[in-house]
């Protein structure tokens, strides 16, 4: 691991360039994402914040390579993205652990066979320890709680050392205390691994708490509305003046009506 330096050296990890996406609904083309452009530096945490239905999952799916964009392109360390791969680890909005595999088997699922059984086991155990599930390797997903499932989901992608970690509202379904613990865990891991993260959320507090930068999205069609840089030291004091002020500004941006009228005004 590199010595502790600045959080990010500024070199680009992920570039999203003019990405648009339409869906066909009942024969009509509906624009869902329009001309999305942003960059994420190595080691940076960027939060994508927007109202429900604004296209956050769609955008993440395009970055992950699960679906094609209608226009524009996504570059991962300079290479265009056209299919999913272990360089972009995804933690899904819903539970997506493989239910017929134990926790340890889920975490080891993507590891190469070349490591041998022992090597895989060692990596899996190490990663389970990091996410605080050292004693749960033999459990089946159905026998662990929602928070633990998301820990496993995190572990199974981190073990593959992805260039970028894509997280789609990973803690939205958790209770406040568990969510707080997951935030602590994510922050600790991110600091330790200097992991690049794109974090989707609709909660301004979560965005400001975790991210170096917050990108606020518009709805129908989904566009980038505003960008905030979070220049607060970690760990962040949620009741500090700087934090509250930024949270208020982000919330205000999120709640703003779009400049243009939503529909044609009858004359």
């Amino acid at each position, binding site marked *: 691991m590199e010595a502790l330096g600045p959080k990010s050296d500024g070199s680009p990890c992920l570039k999203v360039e003019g990405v648009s996406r339409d869906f066909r609904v009942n024969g009509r083309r509906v624009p869902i994402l329009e001309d999305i452009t942003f960059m994420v530096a190595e080691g940076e945490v960027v939060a994508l914040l927007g109202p429900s239905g604004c296209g956050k999952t769609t955008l993440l799916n395009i970055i*992950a*390579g*699960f679906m094609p964009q209608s226009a524009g392109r996504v570059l991962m360390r300079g290479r265009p993205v056209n*299919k*999913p*791969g*272990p360089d*972009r*680890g*995804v933690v*899904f909005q*819903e539970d*997506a*652990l*493989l*239910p*017929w*595999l134990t926790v340890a088997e889920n975490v080891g*699922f*993507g590891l190469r066979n070349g490591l041998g059984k022992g090597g895989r086991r060692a990596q899996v155990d190490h990663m389970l320890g990091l996410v605080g599930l050292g004693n749960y390797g033999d459990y*089946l997903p159905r026998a662990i709680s929602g928070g633990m499932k998301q820990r496993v989901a995190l572990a*199974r*992608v981190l073990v*593959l050392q992805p260039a970028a970690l894509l997280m789609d509202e990973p803690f939205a379904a958790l209770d406040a205390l568990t969510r707080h613990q997951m935030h602590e865990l994510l922050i600790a891991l991110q600091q330790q691994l200097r992991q690049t993260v794109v974090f989707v959320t609709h909660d301004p507090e979560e965005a400001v708490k975790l991210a170096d930068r917050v990108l606020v999205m518009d709805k129908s069609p989904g566009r980038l509305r505003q960008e905030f840089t979070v220049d607060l030291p970690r760990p962040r004091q949620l009741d500090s003046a700087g934090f509250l002020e930024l949270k208020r500004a982000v919330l205000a941006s999120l709640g703003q009506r779009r400049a243009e009228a939503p529909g044609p005004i009858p004359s």
Partner: protein
Amino acid sequence: MAARLLPWLLPACTLGLWALLSLGGLVPAYLLPSPKQVLDTALTYFFAPQGESYLAGRFLGDALASLGRVGAGFALAVALGLPLGLLSGRLRPMRLFLETFINGVRAVPGIAWLPLALVWFGIGFKTTVFLVSLAAFFPVYLGAASGAMQVNPLFLRAGAMMGLGRVRLVFTVLVPATMPHVVTGLRLGLGISFAYLVLGELTGVSDGLGATIMDARMLGRVDVIVMGILLIAVIGRLCDSGMMWGLRLFKSVRRL
């Protein structure tokens, strides 16, 4: 304890009722032989030296012949039905290509194929295997297809995201995720295999459980008919258990 006894309660009651009806003289023996009589017949069928009577010692040969036909027919149905089902469940063009044809053929009762099968294959092994595989194909195919269609797309995405190629994705994600439906299809398919086995063997083949039942009808041996029915029930049940035991070697079956 209760869990161990409960499965045997209904068979035991049926046996009791049977004994009551026949031994109490409520039903004449030429309609329903007593359990004792059927047991004696079975002992002859199993253990008597061959040639002593037409039935004597034929069980092993009959059972092996029947199992061979069921095994071959069912294996053929699985070999075709599983891959085609998985393909049509995942690939829309494949589904469109197969659906009309398969549903059309499915609408024809298997028994309607019997005359044609006799013309094509004659009496014996091939006709029976044809009928069995034709009948077993549909539940196997439909189970695999509906399972593959309903696989949680997140599982496939998760697999692809972790770097799995297409082939590994099929074997390590798609097939395990489809297993519950596949297992149902296989069990239904194996069950119906026995139905069509007996149908195929009723046509005058020289050995097999169905043939023995048919011969017994000609000879008016109701005790042999009842014994044949019971044997098919027991063998069918054992085959189902055996298949489930084998399938439980898969984690995806064992753990769901």
